[in-house]
């Protein structure tokens, strides 16, 4: 069985990869040191533990389209990857979704873009739970992840937004009125009843619980949005087909079917109608923008890693392949190709780091985005409190929920939101375009070696294409940059 090999490339260390971050060390050494340590840990994990699985897992998917990558998920669970972004007092590792997550994602993707996809489904679910600000559900989900991370089938969640006839339209609040939605929730005694179908849901066939987003009124979706937790085995809920994707097969793309599925009250993370006050009108938009700001930046980092993965493989092979008797690495044209690929990586990296800094400025009062303060990770009192029933109840109350929503809302100005929207879309577009471009270049200049599965390049080519499509197509993200950023300074301009 072929597997990914690496040359000893200690020259490409943290400072080589992130020269601009290193500049920060003069002003705030603790952040940089923390990021560096976490990055080195991640690099060790992906090269030593993940790399041996990458090609064999992908081959199993080619052999059997119904294969599910449990082995890879177990690996993630065993190495604490499923609780990474949960604060310490909730039982997690306390790496918030800050710079560390971004640079670690890049590192992961440089070895396996598809592994990121698997983790991404779970991460998106977590992001939705965090941003719904429902601490009661967050507490339960966090407990289960920690409790089952070493299981045969570890506990993960997903996030269901896309519908069969509405992909791009449910990625933008402004597009909701025009979307052809098929899912709708209905209030019922004891909770809510869900109906409809969701498709392309990442990690769907691996998840135990599903975070589902659908409106109570399709015709007024943007003001009646609901966010629900649906567990496997709930009557009226079933898993449909698993899509046969070109790549990124480690994370399944699943269909979720809701047929009069009753969700109990305690599993409703957010029902916008519970907060009818005028000030909460824009809450859903805020939540979605917040999630997208983070996830699009993350896709930028993930894409950068994919672009680098293609570059890394190309460099590795260029030292071994000959053209007219001379090794490629010694030929000017090959060096030109490799340099172009390297430039693409650096551009993509610049875009996501820039976006991360804008997030840290825009959401500076939200610990999830900028880094959990140490008391959230180390406080024994908080850890104890979190496990008291009365405190859990208090956290999960509507009043508490409203307080937190208020806090978050007042923490983000419209200008900052616009900047976050722009930069995160930009990171996503630049990153994914560079990822695809590097795959094109690698395949072109390597010839046969780029086409054979056992050399690890063709897999990246197949994996990369999805990056331009999900999290809002690159077309939508371009419009997004115009609408949320450029249009603000062009009075009267028509936007789409």
């Amino acid at each position, binding site marked *: 069985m072929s597997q990914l090999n690496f040359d000893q490339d200690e020259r490409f260390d943290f400072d080589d990869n992130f020269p601009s971050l290193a500049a920060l060390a003069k002003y705030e050494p603790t952040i940089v040191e923390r990021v560096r340590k976490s990055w080195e840990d991640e690099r060790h994990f992906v090269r030593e533990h993940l790399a041996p699985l990458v090609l064999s897992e992908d081959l199993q998917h*080619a052999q059997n389209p119904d294969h599910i990558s449990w082995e890879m998920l177990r690996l993630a669970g065993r190495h604490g990857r499923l609780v990474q972004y949960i604060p310490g007092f909730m039982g997690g590792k306390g790496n918030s979704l800050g710079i560390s997550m971004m640079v670690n994602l890049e590192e992961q993707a440089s070895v396996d873009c598809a592994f990121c996809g698997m983790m991404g489904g779970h991460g998106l679910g977590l992001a939705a739970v965090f941003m719904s600000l429902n601490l009661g559900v967050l507490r339960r989900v966090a407990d289960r992840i920690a409790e089952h991370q070493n299981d045969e089938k570890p506990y993960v969640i997903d996030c269901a937004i896309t519908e069969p006839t509405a992909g791009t339209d449910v990625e933008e609040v402004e597009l909701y009125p025009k979307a052809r939605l098929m899912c709708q929730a209905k209030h019922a005694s004891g909770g809510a009843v869900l109906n409809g179908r969701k498709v392309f849901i990442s990690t769907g066939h691996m998840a135990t619980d599903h975070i589902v987003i659908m409106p109570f009124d399709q015709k007024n979706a943007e003001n009646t949005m609901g966010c629900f937790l649906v567990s496997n085995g709930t009557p009226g809920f079933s898993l449909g087909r698993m899509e046969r994707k070109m790549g990124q097969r480690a994370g399944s793309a699943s269909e979720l079917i809701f047929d009069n599925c009753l969700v109990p009250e305690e599993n409703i993370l957010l029902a916008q109608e519970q907060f009818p006050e005028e000030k909460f009108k824009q809450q859903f938009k805020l939540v979605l923008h917040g999630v997208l700001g983070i996830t699009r930046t993350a896709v930028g980092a993930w894409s950068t890693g994919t672009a680098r993965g293609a570059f890394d493989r190309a460099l590795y092979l260029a030292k071994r392949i000959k*053209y007219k008797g001379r090794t490629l690495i010694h030929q000017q044209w090959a060096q030109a190709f490799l340099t172009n690929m390297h430039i693409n990586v650096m551009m993509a990296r610049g875009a996501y780091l820039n976006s991360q800094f804008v997030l840290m400025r825009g959401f500076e009062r939200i610990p999830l985005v900028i880094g959990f303060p140490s008391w959230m990770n180390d406080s024994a009192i908080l850890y104890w409190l979190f496990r008291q029933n009365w405190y859990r109840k208090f956290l999960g109350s509507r009043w508490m929920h409203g307080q937190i929503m208020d806090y978050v809302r007042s923490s983000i100005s419209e200008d900052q939101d616009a900047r976050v929207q722009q930069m995160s879309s930009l990171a996503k577009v630049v990153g994914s375009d560079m990822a695809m471009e590097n795959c094109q270049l690698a395949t072109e200049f390597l*010839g*046969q070696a*780029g086409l054979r599965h056992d050399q690890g390049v063709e897999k990246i080519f197949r994996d990369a294409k999805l990056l331009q499509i999900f999290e809002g*197509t690159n077309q939508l993200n371009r419009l997004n940059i115009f609408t949320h950023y450029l249009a603000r300074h062009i009075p009267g301009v028509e936007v*789409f």
Partner: protein
Amino acid sequence: MGTADQACLAAFRETAQRFAQKELKTRALDFDRYPYAEFNAGVVRAAREVGLSQVLLPEERGGTCQGMEVFSEILFFLAEADASVAAILLINALGQGAILKWGKPSLQEKYLSADLLAFPVYDSPSDLPKGMEAEKKGNGYVLKGKVEYLALAPVAEAAVIPAVLKGTEKIAFFLVDLNNPGISRSAPVLSLGLRGVPAADLETAGLEVPADNLLCPDAGSEYPGLAARFRPAAAALAVGVAAGSYEAAKAYTRERYQAGKIIIDHEMVRLLLSNVAVIAESGRTIFGAMARAVDEGREELLGETGLILSTELASRAVSDGVQALGGYGYIEDYGQEKRMRDAKQIESFFGPAPVKRLELLEGIIRREK
């Protein structure tokens, strides 16, 4: 072999279209599961029965003695439905071309009627690999070494392979019978695209072949001429894939809605479709002109440039063909992701893309000296 007359061209075009519609359109995805599903030997046989695969052979060898224009046109229509089957015909025809050009009559007699011939289509004609060595022994040769990524090797009866003639710098073409136990084939290699075209590595520790099986003692200088003749066919393959992608993208974007509008009514989507349309529409004229030049024996730079232009543009455009369908482009159902993989694979026919560019300039400079 001169230019094809219009009636003849039209007849082959119709046969190819009908064959693509009947045999390929609905089954292309099944063929693509190889090596985890059966090789589609039946379709290859059917193509032969309707007269699509032997068109370049002379009549006395069971062919219809057509030129590149007819052959390219056939491949275009097949590739529109399934590039793998079209590529199989092309690779097999290259093998036949080599035997026809350099083989003794007895060899022609035996192997031109073979079901399939393997041929190193992914190698650059000016940079054939040196993994195999041939040593003279008695009346024949002994082959030792390895040939990597040989197209059709897992399913072919015989193969045309390059080998360095021991004691010289020259690379020769040998014809080897793949049923010979002295040569071993690796398990089929999983490829990015053209998965219906099986490829494998060949290895031998000492395979004795008769002297007649030495097809061409100096393939390094003679093969580029043969490869040049087949450039229009490779271009037609790429353009055919782009045409398939274009039609599928148009059909899909005419049906689906986004932001309250039919997708094709979004200008950004039209820009994507235009990228595919440019090569799908102009490509037919380009490979047609390339093929006529070959048939009329004219050496034109259009051969080199047309192949670069059509394969590179097609392989980039089909990515937009996927993009136009969004998530549905990325799953197998609409065939778009397969076309994206196939086009990229075709781009490496006759060597890596940038190598073809370097060779173009080398040729130009040599000619202008």
